[in-house]
């Protein structure tokens, strides 16, 4: 038996071209497009998942804020982050610099929404030959920042559903 729907705002954060928009598209529409299209500003989408929480099944409506990763939106990001219950930090396994850069986004989030739950998605796991970040490096970063992580591929769908489900659980536990 499920209860009434709970709405929660979740932001996707990370450098440009790491695959934030592709992850949302995979999660919501189960689709993938190889073509890179930069997001400017914010695109809000919604998907409801059923999550078990304390012996209950909860309809959790995730309101996904796909935010621009480009630098010129740094000033605007704080206004987008307000009211976020959770965030998915996304890095690109083929671009090592995208992992440490996440700290800036995490700091912004902590400042605006200190109680937001965070999960790390190391994306583009399908590009095995081009990977320049090791699992050990990602794990070390995740441990340092006390966030769980998953290897994901928006292209194949690997880990994408798990990321959002686990984040949903964390949000409900901490609410």
């Amino acid at each position: 038996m499920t209860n009434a729907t709970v709405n929660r705002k979740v932001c996707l954060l990370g450098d440009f071209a790491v695959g934030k928009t592709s992850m949302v598209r995979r999660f919501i529409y189960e689709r993938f497009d190889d073509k890179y299209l930069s997001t400017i500003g914010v695109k809000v989408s919604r998907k409801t998942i059923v999550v078990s929480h304390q012996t209950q099944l909860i309809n959790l409506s995730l309101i996904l804020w796909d935010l621009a990763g480009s630098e010129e939106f740094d000033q605007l990001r704080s206004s987008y982050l307000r009211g976020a219950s959770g965030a998915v930090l996304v890095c690109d396994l083929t671009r090592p610099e995208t992992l440490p850069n996440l700290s800036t986004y995490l700091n912004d989030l902590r400042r605006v929404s200190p109680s937001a739950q965070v999960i790390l998605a190391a994306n583009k796991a399908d590009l095995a030959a081009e990977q320049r970040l090791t699992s050990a490096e990602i794990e070390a970063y995740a441990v340092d920042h006390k966030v769980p992580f998953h290897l994901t591929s928006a292209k194949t769908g690997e880990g994408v559903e798990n990321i959002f489900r686990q984040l949903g659980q964390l949000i409900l536990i901490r609410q």
Partner: protein
Amino acid sequence: MDRSLIQFVWRARQIAVALTDRNLIIREAYGQTEILAEEMKSCLGCPLLDVVPELLGNQRELEDILSGRSSGYRLDYVNREVEGRTRYLTIEDLPYRDERGEIVGIAHLVQDITSQGELEQQITQNRNQLILLQEQIKRQNLELIAANAELRRLSELKSDFIALAAHDLRTPLTSINGYLEMLLDGQMGPLTQEEVEALNNIQRSSLRLVSLTDELLNAARLEAGRLDLVLKPVDLASLVQAVTDEYTGQIHSKRQRLDVEMDAHIPPALCDEKWAKVIVSNLVSNAVKFTPESGQITVRLRMAEQTGFLLLSVADTGIGISGQDQELIFSRWFRSKNPSSMKAQGAGLGLYITRSLVELHGGEIWVESQPGKGSVLFVKFPLAT
């Protein structure tokens, strides 16, 4: 204010306004209301949060506006998909006050900035793709640098190996040649004519091996950068004469003609005498090797047209060098595919070593040739003054 003027401004600037009560229920809407929601008419009386998904999760901001704690909340570049095209909006929520100044709801302002957004998106897209390309080039450069370093390491290993092998070959050859000379001098007893001819053949081959190991050693030294020149004024005219004299025997045995022409009063060149001799010797040896019997070899030493240089040229009436091969003759291990050239012995290192030595001296080397009409090799040596 004229109502039609207000309508004009709203239409021209693509602005819409929705006014809510304190329960965030939309009570009035004005302007380009289609940008508020797909069907704005049916939204009158609906909760603002149902119509504007971007406000979900931001109820706190709206409460702050209603309570007067916040002066407003703004979102720029909000993306909305409309018939497959992205529409860019600016959303702003402000306190809506009555005549007494009391906050009675929210004024929800929306402006369509799609033209600006599309331009911004294109600029961002192009810039991001450029950055990605730069990152890719940077990574590939680093990979190339690493690969290059590895190749250098392997090349050094190879040079070391060649130098070691050549050195180890050279030592027993010295001993062989010593005993051969003693045998040929009759120091170990008289020899028959047949024995002398056999020993002469062995000595020629042995000397050929010595020359080959010397070339290998020199090439290895040059590649490893372990060849130090001792530059001093050298009488190049005497050196050229001495080298050509050494080849007299070979030239006579091939019935070739040798002319040595030198300007009077050739000033000294600035070079390492030992290695300058190798340069001249390689050029003359090459000419002898590739000139047929009864051919002509001409060695000239004169002042170069370029001030501060001497010009040495070694001309032959040999088989000549094709235009394609002229580009390659100074490369390592180069052997021409011309059948006449292939008969000549050699490792293909002589001209490579010569070029490297000439360049180390600050000189220049080049060839002029036509197949079938012979070749001229030119070397410029810097003057000592």
